[in-house]
């Protein structure tokens, strides 16, 4: 099975050959799970999402026309699912006041448990960096995850996102620029805190 091309497996799966579909899952399960987990950063959500994504692949595989490669098509479904999930979550969170304290934005907390050395970022807590990353626009965060953690090429990311290369780079720039600005703000607060 390992030597068979995706296209052949897809054709077989489209004809209802379940071992072929299983093989496709095996090929991509790890990468998709990794991407989703890095993006949502929650085991249970990631596991639900991955399940949902493969069910979508399963129910839609007959509609896959082969305009893009199978992996691009699959990752596009995964990425859209993740971004949708994040958007829904964001709407829910923004309506909840509790979330503000939950995310640890209380400045007193900031002063309490982060020790920041002059000009150095290293001591800003993971938790805080993660929450900054989490506040990024869902598209921006997805590009960041694909590039930094999944080490995908810009070309692949552009194909999956269905956007031009320049747009991808520009969004990534904005994501990193926002993070950089926020981190400097945090460093400033830390330094000037009594």
């Amino acid at each position, binding site marked *: 099975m390992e030597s068979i091309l995706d296209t052949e497996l897809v054709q077989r799966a489209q004809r209802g050959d379940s*071992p072929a579909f299983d093989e496709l*899952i*095996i090929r991509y399960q790890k990468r998709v799970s*990794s991407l989703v987990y890095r993006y949502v950063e929650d085991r249970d959500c990631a*596991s639900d999402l991955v399940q949902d994504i493969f069910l979508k692949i399963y129910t839609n595989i007959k509609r896959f026309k082969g305009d893009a490669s199978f992996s691009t098509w699959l990752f596009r479904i995964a990425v859209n699912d993740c971004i949708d999930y994040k958007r829904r979550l964001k709407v829910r969170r923004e309506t909840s006041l509790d979330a503000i304290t939950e995310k640890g934005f209380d400045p007193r907390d900031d002063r309490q448990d982060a020790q920041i050395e002059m000009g150095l970022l290293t001591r800003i807590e*993971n938790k805080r*960096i993660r929450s900054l990353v989490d506040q990024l626009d869902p598209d921006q965060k997805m590009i960041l995850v694909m590039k930094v953690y999944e080490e995908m090429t810009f070309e692949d990311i552009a194909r999956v996102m269905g956007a031009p290369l320049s747009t991808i780079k520009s969004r990534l720039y904005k994501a990193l620029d926002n993070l950089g600005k926020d981190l400097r703000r945090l460093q400033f607060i830390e330094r000037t805190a009594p």
Partner: protein
Amino acid sequence: MKHLSEEQLIDLVFEETKDSQSHRHSQSCGECRERLDRIALGLHAVRSLDLEPIPLRKPLTVRFLRSRRWRWVGWAAAASFLLLSLAGTRFELNQGQMSVEFAMFGTQQLNDDEFENRLKGVEADMLSAFQLHAEMMQMQVDDRLNALYAEHTQQMRELSRQVEDDIKSVDYQNGDMIASMRDDVYSYIQSEKVRGRTP
């Protein structure tokens, strides 16, 4: 030269450009240097995040799942039987054979408090055994759920219902077992006390 574009800066920060001109510009132009530093700081922060390892289990195919399913049911039955017989054996020792029973509880005279403590110890052992059992079952359940991607939704619902029932029945069993053991041990203590002996 005009300032670097966002694209050029991204290429620089990911070291994906051989364009020495933009590199030189980023060194000599304060504004571009500042923009580059800022995104480099952002990138450094993201890269420094130590995330927990990704919870991946080995992929299972649908057919493999089917064969595992039966093995799993068999395994659970065997495990329950083992525990039941373990508990039963211990229990029989308590009821029937004095010498072994004494070895288990110690031969010295114990007052009520001490005895109560010993009893609690036995109970705690049992509870941790059941806990371990439950955890092992949970691992099996996780493996199975993980492999359900390719199954139809209906089939998935049926399977998870079945798993839940399995877990529930074992839970009930465990609960009953603990309760009856406790009762039996207590009645044994009482009967020994009536006979004027301290176990």
